[in-house]
């Protein structure tokens, strides 16, 4: 067979180097195995993190996020480039390995069958595409320099050189592999055999043209040289990747498979210690690197330094000292430095105060924008919460947060207000006459309206409570509140790392909810919604008021009057804990679209790309270092979209956006309103709540 002689031709060229090739193979494989083992050392010392459950869901993630590259098109240019490179790598895997084996065991290079011919053509093109992508990527890094790759000076030196070196190595790998194929084909042609066709205009095809005029001996030297370059580059890449941003090539599959499955939840203090035994645990949270779980360390290794997280991070956008990208990069640098490939491991150094600053860790609003964007499904919120747990445990808490935490402990709300005043918004005589609200335990009801602290105590937000109550009354729901027996849901308490206090609040509320005998829970506060849904156990199912409104208006239980001001343009701001953490995007929009005459526009950053208002709960007490409030950036986005009214569905969004409208100087031009307030204003009232004295607002 003609191909047989090609093999023997290539073999005869490579034969003199056989021992060298085997030596390179041995050095390469051994080095990589050693490096990989050294990289595993901290993971073995890390905290437990069980991730072997639900294999079907995990394989689904692999299919979607790893193989399917699901997140990549969100950044179109870089995303398409990455998809091409990834597809090229996947296609080239077999070819790369078979080429590697040829040098050592040339007898293995069997004559290509029909399948192999097709495969070779495809991979000729794949290598060409990858090679071209590398050139494009290098030009992008050098000339266009997307802002998100920049490294602020406080985080160290730019990573450009490292990135370009790695890109160049891949380009060399592709070129060498192309030259090897080209030489083989050129030699074949030279000895007068109609052999394998190189794919038209592919890299090997192009390289074959200049070789065609060379002597057979020269071609042989090129073949040998290309092979050696290919082999050494391959191992160089393999062994260099675990030192930098391309380690994800090896780790991404595992990182995606073991990714967190339950969004909206917070990891327990210790996976291997039940809540009841936590008092025996010596320290809480992450204080040293070894306090991270092995998966969180794998996250650090897997970060590709693409900068999407920080590009979407609202804290980073307003100049707070937090960049989620560097949360990973700094930890990885720490790991590489303290768990070196050569030399002894040094460990157990405090992270906060050296690697991370206090303000950096408190700056996060846990909005989840970074996690939503990460192509590798890296988790940040759980790490932030774990670091905060460590700081709380050490007593290292800003003074501005100590007062509200103490008040939550003694009064069950961060404002230090009396428990018995929690239901004042409802017990107001005038409101009671219009819309009587039952206090449960004394009375019974089907539905519990869980109000939570902000809406209960804040004069302005009490209007949301009254609107919610009127909506529930209007749809004929038999509902009540816990009143003085309600405590703060503890949602932010937990996310600020005060797990013990959270547990106390949760247990108190759980008992009160169970004692009330309700069948379901409704809340207008997405933070309470998320807490009751994900942080509490054994409580009745919970719905956010926007879901209730969407459901009942679709069923005809709520009808709307024509919008009061048809000239105004509305936009909807997605609260993080309703949207990103719980996927409630459409219900509030459907409600708005059901109001006759209401004109609605979308902000550029909407739905899962929503931009956090500045955070809720304890975050309102924290005094961050920032250039501008997040809320101000957000109302500017609304103005840019051409909106006059921002509708949201969260009391914290409300307070932040209303303040921001004033700060941005948009007072009189823009207003913010809660979805419940808008629905209350627009709904056709049934008898019980229809009244001339429309008691709206505080």
């Amino acid at each position, binding site marked *: 067979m003609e191909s047989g002689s090609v093999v023997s031709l290539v073999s005869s060229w490579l034969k003199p180097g056989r021992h060298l090739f085997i030596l390179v193979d041995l050095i390469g494989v051994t080095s990589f195995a050693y490096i990989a083992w050294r990289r595993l050392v901290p993971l073995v010392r890390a905290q437990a993190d069980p991730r072997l459950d639900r294999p079907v869901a995990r394989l689904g993630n692999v299919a979607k996020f790893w193989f399917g590259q699901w997140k990549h098109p969100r950044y179109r240019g870089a995303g398409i480039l990455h998809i091409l490179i990834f597809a090229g790598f996947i296609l080239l895997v077999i070819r790369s390995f078979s080429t590697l084996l040829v040098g050592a065991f040339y007898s293995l290079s069997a004559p290509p069958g029909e399948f192999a011919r097709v495969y070779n053509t495809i991979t000729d093109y794949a290598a060409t595409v990858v090679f071209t992508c590398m050139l494009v990527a290098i030009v992008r890094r050098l000339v266009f320099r997307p802002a998100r790759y920049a490294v602020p000076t406080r985080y160290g030196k730019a990573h450009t050189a490292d990135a370009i070196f790695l890109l160049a190595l891949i380009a060399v790998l592709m070129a060498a592999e192309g030259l090897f194929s080209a030489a083989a084909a050129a030699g074949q042609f030279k000895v007068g055999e109609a052999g394998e066709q190189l794919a038209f205009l592919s890299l090997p095809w192009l390289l074959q043209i200049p070789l065609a005029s060379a002597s057979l001996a020269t071609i042989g030297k090129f073949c040998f040289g290309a092979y050696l370059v290919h082999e050494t580059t391959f191992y160089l890449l393999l062994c260099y990747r675990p030192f930098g941003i391309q380690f994800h090539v090896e780790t991404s599959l595992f990182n995606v498979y073991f990714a967190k499955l339950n969004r909206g939840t917070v990891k327990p203090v210790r996976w291997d210690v039940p809540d009841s035994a936590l*008092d025996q645990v010596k320290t809480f949270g992450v204080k040293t690197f070894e306090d991270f779980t092995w998966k969180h360390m794998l996250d650090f290794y897997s970060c590709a330094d693409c900068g999407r997280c920080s590009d979407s991070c609202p804290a980073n956008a307003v100049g707070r000292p937090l960049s989620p990208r560097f949360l990973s990069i700094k930890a990885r640098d720490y790991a590489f430095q303290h768990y070196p490939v050569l030399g002894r491991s040094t460990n157990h150094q405090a992270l906060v105060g050296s690697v991370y600053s206090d303000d950096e860790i408190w700056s996060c609003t846990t909005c989840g924008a970074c996690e939503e964007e990460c192509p590798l499904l890296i988790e940040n919120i759980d790490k932030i919460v774990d670091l905060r747990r460590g700081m709380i445990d050490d*007593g290292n*808490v800003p003074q501005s947060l100590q007062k509200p935490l103490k008040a939550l402990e003694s009064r069950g709300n961060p404002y230090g207000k*009396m428990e018995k005043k929690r239901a004042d918004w409802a017990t107001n005589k005038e409101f009671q006459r219009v819309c009587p609200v039952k206090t449960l335990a004394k009375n019974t009801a089907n539905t519990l309206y869980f109000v939570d602290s902000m809406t209960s105590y804040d004069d302005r937000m009490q209007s949301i409570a009254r609107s919610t109550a009127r909506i529930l009354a209007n749809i004929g729901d038999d509902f009540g509140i816990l009143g003085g027996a309600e405590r703060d849901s503890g949602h932010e308490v937990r996310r600020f790392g005060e*797990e*013990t206090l959270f547990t*106390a609040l949760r247990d108190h509320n759980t008992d009160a909810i169970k004692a009330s005998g309700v069948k379901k829970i409704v809340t207008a506060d997405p933070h309470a919604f998320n807490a009751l849904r994900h942080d509490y156990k054994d409580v009745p199912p919970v719905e956010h008021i926007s879901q209730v409104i969407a459901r009942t208006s679709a069923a005809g239980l709520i009808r709307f009057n024509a919008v009061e001001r048809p000239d105004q343009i509305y936009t909807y701001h997605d609260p993080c804990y309703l949207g990103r953490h719980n996927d409630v995007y459409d219900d509030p929009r459907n409600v708005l679209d059901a109001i006759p005459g209401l004109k609605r526009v979308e902000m550029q950053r909407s739905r899962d790309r929503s931009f956090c208002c500045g955070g809720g709960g304890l975050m309102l007490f924290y005094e961050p270092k920032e250039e501008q409030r997040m809320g101000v950036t957000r109302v500017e986005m609304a103005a840019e979209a051409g909106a006059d009214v921002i509708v949201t569905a969260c009391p914290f969004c409300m307070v932040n956006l209303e303040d921001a409208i004033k700060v941005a100087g948009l007072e009189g031009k823009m207003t913010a309103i809660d979805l419940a307030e808008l629905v209350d204003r627009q709904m056709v009232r049934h008898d019980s709540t229809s009244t001339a004295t429309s008691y709206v607002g505080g």
Partner: protein
Amino acid sequence: MEILVCAKRVPDTSENEITLNRAGSDIEREELVYSVNEADNYAVEEALQIVAKVGGNVSVVTVGDEEDEEILRREMAMGASHGILLSDPEFQMSDGRGIAAILKAFVTQGKYDLILTGVQAEDGAAQIGGMLAAMLDYPFASLVNSIEVLDNYKLKIGREIEGGNREISEIDLPCVLSIQTGINEPRYVGMRGIRAVASVPIPTLGASDLGVDPNTVGEAGARVKRVDYFVPALGKGAEMLAGSREENIDRVLELIAAKGGLK
């Protein structure tokens, strides 16, 4: 260095709505929440920072009853190694001099290099520190907002002077200092920390343990007696500035300057 901090449990002003009782003799205490007096908490933090640097122990003492144990536990959760409750029915209704006499009796039973009090109790009169020092014949400094330990059994202390000035002094040990808030940033104590010290026994000492003559303390020994307590009627409302933003800013600056807030 052995440091003793005198602390007091007070109604937390930020978490209570203080109202008078019907008799008008005291505040309504039914639904109050209490916490450690803020300045005392700063004193404990300062003591902890000193022993972290030079070694030693921090003890916290309070005069009161069983309920006051809660603040001792909170301060122990912060890091104090001992908490001592001075409690006796005879101590009730003591005036400032009586409290100082009880504390003096306790101090002389031990050996303390440094005694700290808060600058004043939120419901108190800023008198214990000075009286205690006088009774012990120790040097005293008030309104202290920085402490540095010197080698020759002395301290270098900073004091806040009205008008924002500072004074630095050297003071011999043993001494009594009253600590101003803002001297440090007290660490956070959560429920977990308090639970960890929940079962540590707290010794309770009475009049006989301390060798205090009951006639010199409590109601019998009090030479200051409260005769009235009330919430003053609210004064006139705030002055509302009506003008353009620039005018208002100028006016605000003027007003602040007139009150001595700007230089």
